[in-house]
């Protein structure tokens, strides 16, 4: 808990970074999974009986509009994108009319209000610009509002009509680039918008990640500096200890520590100042560790470490002891 309190900001940043990275990375999954009433639309291609052109619009046969949220609250749907490829002559004006009907009660009047993403009502008719092609087509074209009378609908059907002048072309669905319609409730929309606002800013995410990274690096540096300082203090303390205690402390440190060279250097200094005392202490220590069975426990004495850790006993001497005491 204390660590948590000390590093609260970092902790929160870390949560933010993870959440935002996860949010951004999960966009495709969210699109696939979280949207309600998602449907893929088929593309229809049409041919102008008079001219060669190609127009592809895709729409499903139905758009399931599920009731969610509170009665009376609008359901929002938007066209994720329409892919329109056309080679319409520039002089031609095309209109895309989108209609919605009650799937359940097809004959019931369907009063659908089309709004844009800001909630402003727009016409259900779009004027297509010639030469517009995917991916330049707007992604969110219109929003289908709920029925104005507030009645529940289970399904609403939408279809597209393509008009040129007064001629309606039949749109035949063909598999092509889909138009995806997502339906979500207001709360979901709010949540989505909030998440987008907070978590969908890559710059902020990477700033968080960098901040955590830099902090970690700084902390590592501080930790290393603290370890070096602690080692320096331990080495200083070694030189002030009685020789026997110094040897035992040094030996334990040497076995457990990564900074073997610094420790070795310190012990060499002690050996230089007190050659007889260090020699005697080490030999007595070694004698104490030689058990009755003549087998020095390897966990207590590592002979190779002993050779390197001190210079009071030569390699030959230690090898001789090993040869005599170890069977």
């Amino acid at each position, binding site marked *: 808990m204390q660590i948590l309190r000390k590093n609260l900001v970092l902790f929160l940043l870390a949560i933010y970074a993870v959440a935002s990275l996860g949010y951004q990375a999960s966009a495709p999954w969210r699109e696939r999974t979280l949207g309600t009433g998602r449907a893929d639309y088929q593309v229809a291609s049409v041919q102008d009986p008079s001219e060669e052109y190609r127009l592809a619009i895709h729409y499903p046969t139905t758009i399931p509009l599920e009731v969610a949220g509170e009665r009376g609250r609008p359901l929002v749907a938007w066209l994720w994108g329409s892919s329109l490829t056309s080679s319409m002559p520039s002089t031609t004006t095309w209109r895309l009319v989108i209609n919605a009907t009650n799937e359940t009660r097809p004959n019931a009047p369907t009063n659908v209000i089309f709004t844009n993403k800001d909630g402003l009502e727009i016409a259900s008719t779009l004027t297509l610009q010639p030469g517009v092609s995917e991916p330049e087509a707007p992604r969110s074209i219109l929003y289908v509002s709920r029925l104005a009378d507030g009645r529940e609908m289970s399904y609403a059907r939408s279809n597209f009509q393509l008009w040129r002048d007064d001629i309606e072309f039949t749109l035949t669905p063909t598999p092509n680039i889909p138009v995806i319609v997502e339906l979500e409730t207001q709360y979901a929309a709010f949540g989505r918008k909030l998440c987008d606002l907070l978590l969908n800013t890559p710059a902020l995410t990477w700033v968080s990640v960098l901040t955590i990274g830099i902090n970690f690096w700084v902390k590592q540096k501080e930790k290393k500096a603290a370890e070096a300082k602690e080692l320096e203090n331990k080495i200083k303390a070694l030189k002030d200890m009685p020789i026997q205690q110094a040897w035992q402390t040094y030996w334990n440190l040497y076995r457990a520590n990564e900074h073997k060279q610094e420790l070795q250097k310190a012990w060499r200094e002690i050996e230089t100042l007190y050659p007889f005392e260090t020699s*005697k202490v080490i030999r007595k220590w070694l004698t104490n560790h030689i058990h009755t069975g003549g087998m020095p426990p390897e966990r207590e004495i590592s002979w190779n470490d002993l050779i390197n850790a001190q210079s009071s006993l*030569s390699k030959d001497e230690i090898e*001789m*002891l090993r040869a*005599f*005491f170890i069977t």
Partner: protein
Amino acid sequence: MTMNTTPIEIEVTLQQALCSFRILGAASQDEIVQRLDERVKEKETALEAIRNEYYLRGGLAGRILLRAWGQHNADLGETFAKWLNDDPVPQHDTNINLPQTDIPPLPLSPKHKKFLENFFNGKQFASYYTPFGPEKAEDDPRLYGFKAPDQNLSIPSLFYDKLPWYPEIAAEQHSFFFAPRGCGRTAAIGQARHLHRITGYKPALSLYLFLCPPFESTHLLKFVADALGRALLDALLEDAYWFIAADHEIRADIGRFLLWWAGDLVTLLRRLRNGGLPIVALPIERANKCDPSYDSRLLTDVLGSYSSLEHICWDDTIAIVRAARVAIGKVYLTQDDWDYPIYLWVDSHLSEGVASQEIPRLWDNELLRRMGNLKIFIRHEFSDLEQIRMEWKAQHLHEMLEHRWKRSGTDSFLDKEKLGDASYMLLQEFRKDIHDKAHSPQEVIREGNRLFEQLGEPLMGDR
């Protein structure tokens, strides 16, 4: 456990144990012996190897291990004790282990020294081959059984001890000597100290006190303690076995005293090093051939385990002296019990006035008498006290001269033809008839050297 069956394996094990003991030091004795006992299974067949490796060639470490092993294994103990008792006084090369009476250089005139060196082809020890040698016998290094540098045999000393008072010097009793100048006092004391040292041919503890005023008790104690320290140091230099093998309490008493005497361990080690022991802290680089000189590490370890006495009094000093005697006796066993004598050799150059005041009190000093056999040598006569007179009569001087003449083989290099009849006769006459005015060996030797220098020029020939 390894079953050592072949002689090579046994030898290797013994050598490993000896080396390990030298490496780990005196404190590892028990562990080494225990391991040795386990590894050497067939001990009966190993006895010869043990004797060779430990008793004959093992030095100090070998004898300590033998002793410890014998105590650990009763079956072997009897055999080992017999070996150790067979030679109670180890015969050492005394080249580096002379007593701490520093032998001064030969008091020869430069011309005399040059002459002798030329005569004997520049050999430095040539000066010892003169018929008359140094005026003072104590200047003859051979007095102590010294070996000449390039000769395998000991050269006999020119010291002449067939004197009526010499047995008094060595006797285990208090003796007071009238020792006039030139009578051979210093040589006699030196010879006696050498023979009656801890590892001498007649083992004893000899303390040499060269006194000077004041003689009040504290000052005297200081002299005695210093003499004891030097005597113990000499004994350690020659052979530390008696010390290391001593009982713990005795060893501790002596060790603590030595530290007090030297001042601290570092100073004590320095004095041992100056005396010839290789006191070093360096590791042994070739441990498979352990240098026996690293036996000194055993001594260093033992000494380093004690702390110095804080102060010392007469009773402490007497106790230390007796403790040393016990330690000696237990190691160098003789047929009799181990009650070795203790000698206090008191020498001084006091003026007559001071001597007349202080010496009688010294002679009656109960503390000194309690400590050992008090031997006081003084240049002055004391009518009230019974003194043994170290006075040379003509007969003694003649016998002394003959002794020197024969010992140095003078006849072999006195070439009559080269010398000429006159010179030859003069030298022979001098040898036979001691001058009436000569009262001391020093005077006789001086005259003899003068004659030889004067007459011996022809002997140089074409050298």
